[in-house]
């Protein structure tokens, strides 16, 4: 009985990921082991150079550095690849002991951190990277902190760079002081942000010039988005997306799981938070008020014509476009390339302007920056069949549930499994 769930291939389904260069120069999509990059500035495909042959298993995390010079990808093949975005060459390849579940880059671009499925966070010092080397350098990673045997779902640096924030499937968010020399470990815990009642799936920061320290927002399997003061660990506000998502498509079907929040993306002025929710076709926008420290509902942008449920969202700080991708690494439809669907929303800048309600709109394929050639690159092909959507949505949902939600066994089943235990025999 146990074995069947253990070997279930659906746990290995990885959602498609999207990441946008901070100055809107590149858009990257990862699906399965495939990494696709499109140059928005020159409107052309980017060819990646990696003599070691790229990723060999599903990519689970991708990210650009704050200055845009680096790009990191990592995943189930236990490799962390660090790319220089000027040449798109893999400059470092770091071997992890376990599968990698999250990556982060320190704000100064000197350290790459990654977390594995057993809750250990490692740091790699990349300060001295030599651009001239043709071959990717193998670097050794050093463990700096650990969530005790819990899958770390997201890793983020605070806006001021003082803290490294890690979220796990055991409902925890840990805020740790990121030392000057992290190679010796990050031992000083600043706070724990506790309040979620399911796995924490995503983290993001909201901040602006008047509030440079920023506040932390988190999304979770309990279908809430929460706002935190990460320095004290205190919960400032909770917004329950489940209620809103239910209103939108109450098809009468009782879902066994909540509408898990899968991804978050914030605007540079911190006034808007885009929320991707499992089973919500489209994206929800929340207003964030930094002075009253509250979250409130702004609107839902639904996507007409197709059931597009984003698996990952992203935006650049310099362009008002919210990028979204939907896809899954292994689909039962036998296609030579893994398919993903990319959409974009314009007007993702601020909630303060009066015309906000009219500004945001879903871009049609021909209006999207980069146009057809971008879609061709990032999606794998121009048009993606309808059946691919439902399969992808279902596969991602199952994978997420299997990975992050604790298995519940009935009392009878647990008692049955304990039947041979000596300490249980005395009852009879």
């Amino acid at each position: 009985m146990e074995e069947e769930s253990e070997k279930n291939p659906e746990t290995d389904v990885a959602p498609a990921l999207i990441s946008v260069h901070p100055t809107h120069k590149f858009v990257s999509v990862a699906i399965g082991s495939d990494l696709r990059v499109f140059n928005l500035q020159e409107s052309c495909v980017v060819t990646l150079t990696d003599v070691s042959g790229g990723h060999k298993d599903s990519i689970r995390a991708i990210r650009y550095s704050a200055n845009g010079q680096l790009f990191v990808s990592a995943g189930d093949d236990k490799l962390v690849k660090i790319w220089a975005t000027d040449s798109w060459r893999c400059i470092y390849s770091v071997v992890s002991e376990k599968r990698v579940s999250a990556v982060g880059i320190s704000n100064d671009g000197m350290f790459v951190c990654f977390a594995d499925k057993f809750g250990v966070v490692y740091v790699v010092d990349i300060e001295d990277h030599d651009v001239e080397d043709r071959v990717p350098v193998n670097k050794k990673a050093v463990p700096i902190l650990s969530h005790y045997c819990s899958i770390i779902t997201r890793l983020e640096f605070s806006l001021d760079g003082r803290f490294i924030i890690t979220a796990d499937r055991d409902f925890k968010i840990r805020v740790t002081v990121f030392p000057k020399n992290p190679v010796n470990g990050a031992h000083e815990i600043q706070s724990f942000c506790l309040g979620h009642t399911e796995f924490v799936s995503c983290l993001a920061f909201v901040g602006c010039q008047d509030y440079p320290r920023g506040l932390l927002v988190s999304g979770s399997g309990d279908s809430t988005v929460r706002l935190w003061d990460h320095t004290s660990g205190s919960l400032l506000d909770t917004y329950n997306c489940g209620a809103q998502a239910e209103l939108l498509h109450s098809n009468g079907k009782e879902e066994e799981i909540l509408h898990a929040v899968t991804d978050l993306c914030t605007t540079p002025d911190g006034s808007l938070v885009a929320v991707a929710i499992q089973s919500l076709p489209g994206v929800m926008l929340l207003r964030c008020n930094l002075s009253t420290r509250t979250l409130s509902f702004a609107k839902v942008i639904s996507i007409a014509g197709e059931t597009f449920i984003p698996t990952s969202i992203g935006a650049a700080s310099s362009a008002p476009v919210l990028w979204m991708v939907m896809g899954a690494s292994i689909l039962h439809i036998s296609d030579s390339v893994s398919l993903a669907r990319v959409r974009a929303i314009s007007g993702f800048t601020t909630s303060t302007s009066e015309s906000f309600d009219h500004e945001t709109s879903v871009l049609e394929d021909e209006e999207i920056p980069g146009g057809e050639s971008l879609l061709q690159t990032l999606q794998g092909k121009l048009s993606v069949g309808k059946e691919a959507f439902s399969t992808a949505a279902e596969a991602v949902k199952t994978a997420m549930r299997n990975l992050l939600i604790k298995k519940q066994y009935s009392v009878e089943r647990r008692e049955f499994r304990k039947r041979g235990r000596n300490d249980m025999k005395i009852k009879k």
Partner: protein
Amino acid sequence: METIHCDETISRRRCPRTVDHIHHRRKMLEHEANANSTHSKTTGLPRKRFYRARAHSNPLSDSHFPVPISPSQVDYSVHYPQLFPSPDKFDGSKRIEFADVGCGFGGLLISLSTMFPETLMIGMELRDKVTEYVKERVVALRSSNPGQYENVSVVRTNSMKYIPNYFEKEQLTKMFFLFPDPHFKEKNHRRRVINLHLLDEYAYVLREGGIIYTITDVEELGVWIKSCLEGHPLFEAVTKEELEADAVVKLLSSATEEGQKVARNGGQTFQAVYRRIAPCVSNCEKH
């Protein structure tokens, strides 16, 4: 977590047969008198043989017991009903200060309870039956000694995973790790309750000057614990003079069932007592 069965029935197997016989007869008599009662008629205390448990429990497995979402959700009225009669009365003025991690059958807590009658303390134990035993033991002690033992309680939890769910930052003044599971195999070292990364969490819940007490009868583990504490920037060893002046140190080897057994067999013990210090390194960096 106890390392060896502290079960009376098991240790008695080693006794000569005659003694065993006498024990057996006495037990029979006792049994008749008590007729299925899990508590001794004479002392009112729970009897261990009704709380037999396995010696080990896997700290890595998923937990299926309730865990408070955050320290503010810990219901003090359940643990200390005399001091906090209703859940709403709790104002946070008095909080738990001592934690005995892997408290086992609770010997240390019982001794500490009378030594520090004004301090709230809690035992944390992963094995449900052992936790049940300690719960009953505290209830029995409270009823036979009115006014005493009101400051001690126990909770079933996996302290390696959920310490931050029970205690705020800098809440504790003392933490105890007595005779933890040694986990000899190298692949199981990460199950040890003291390791470099978990010390971060213990340092988080301990206030500056707070003390972590550890003792083991396994030399290999003693060396491991010492090296972890020694290598951690937020802990420093307590000096010999201070150790001698500290009454709690004497309890480490004498108060617990496990400690008494080691003493009975003339075994060696290895202590490590460290103090939580201010994070000097990062402060220096900032200035």
